């Protein structure tokens, strides 16, 4: 059993020669790069690697890279010191941080919003796919918690961004979905209702930094009830999203 586990361990973590060749190798192109003890600006610099020396890039965390020098010293280097560093074939390394342009050309986006749904609280999560810089499709799930009733809704909608190059990007949205309302048990016995729902809305988004986007929106819902009147609901939400 001990031998077997030893073999398994070796299979998982063994063969250091192989592990050494796994990492991305680069040649320092700046006059020098500084190795910090941790992945942050405040961590002290404990080692310096000169121009022309080879380094292994082990991993990346946010804007920091864990590198290993030829002598085996390990430390964290900020992205700003690695953008000019070359890979071993002489090509610049592609390690740029995401920026506003990446947001314009994004494909996938995820976000969380919270706010007010006609007096009740609402939390929404959504995922979106962008067809162009102007048009994207979204699928969202919202949980509603109120004093009189709770519920949830699922919506699919199309987003149109007329001016994706602006700093604050306005958008319009149109969609449909399903809402489920569950009145609270302490009140008079009312049946749970599931209805179709449609909405129009508008909002703004603004790029913050990295993969972060701030978002605020207003939506006007029409609940297609089985009664004579359709219900109208206003919703205001704030939140943030990431893009990939």
């Amino acid at each position, binding site marked *: 059993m001990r031998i077997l586990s030893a073999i398994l361990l070796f299979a998982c973590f063994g063969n250091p020669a192989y592990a050494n060749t796994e990492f991305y190798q680069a040649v320092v192109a700046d006059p020098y790069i500084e190795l910090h003890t*941790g992945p942050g600006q405040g961590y002290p610099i404990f080692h310096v690697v000169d121009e022309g020396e080879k380094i292994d890039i082990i991993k990346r*965390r946010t804007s920091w*890279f864990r590198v290993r020098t030829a002598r085996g010293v390990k430390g964290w280097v900020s992205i700003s010191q690695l953008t000019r560093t070359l890979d071993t*074939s002489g090509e610049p390394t592609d*390690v740029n941080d995401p920026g506003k342009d990446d947001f314009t050309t994004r494909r996938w986006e995820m976000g969380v919003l919270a706010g007010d749904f006609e007096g009740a609280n609402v*939390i929404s*999560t959504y995922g979106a796919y962008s067809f162009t810089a102007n048009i994207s499709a979204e699928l969202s799930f919202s949980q509603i*918690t109120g004093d009189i009733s709770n519920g949830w809704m699922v919506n699919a909608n199309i987003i149109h961004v007329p001016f994706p190059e602006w700093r604050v990007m306005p958008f319009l949205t149109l969609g449909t979905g399903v809402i489920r309302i569950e009145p609270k048990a302490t009140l008079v016995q009312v049946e749970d209702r599931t209805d179709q729902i449609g909405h129009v809305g508008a909002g703004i988004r603004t790029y913050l930094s990295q993969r972060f986007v701030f978002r605020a929106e207003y939506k006007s819902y029409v609940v297609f009830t089985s009664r004579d009147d359709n219900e109208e609901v206003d919703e205001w939400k704030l939140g*943030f999203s990431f893009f990939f």
Partner: protein
Amino acid sequence: METRILIFLLRATLLASLAATSIGCSSKLVDIDADQKEPVIDARVDRREIKAADIDTEDFELGIFGGFMSVEDFGSNAVYGARLAYHVTEGIFVEASYGRTDTEETSFERLSGGAPLLSDDDRLFQYYDISLGYNLLPGEVFVGSNWASSSDLYFILGVGNTSFAGDEFFTINFGAGYRVLVNDWIAVHLDVRDRVFSTDLLGEKKNVNNIEFNFGLSFFF
């Protein structure tokens, strides 16, 4: 006459062979030149297949935690759950978490000996939330003289939902935590969190503070 033709033929062969050797020599000379002028940059570099995208990016952190949670009026009990964080920058991270705890009878229920307020199923307290965290005080910790590791004291604020007593509550959570990296990719956490929501479960409507203390283990990937 025949001798003349013979001489002519001999000369012709001689010339031809001379020409051939001179061409051969010159071509050889060219070869030598090429050998001597070695290009400064050797184009025959073994190109690596690995691209920058292959650098292992570890911005996600998945963890489990366990501890104690005091649910206002319903006693303190063990809580356990899981969390997933995404580190956006060295300072900011986003965290989604889920936790659950069983609650006890209120003091009133125990002392009065009357009918219980809640069924056993309704005593289960579950929450989920999405929060924004900030590593306000990053630092380093030292154990003995041989081991140093990075740490963060972070503050966190978020919104979520609590499911308790057969009802759902919009919940605001805030707190602070301490994260110490054991190595490159394993971290331990100590967290204190207050989860506040408004309820009229015991008659009058009020905000309840549910304070949680937990210890966690997480992995960066």
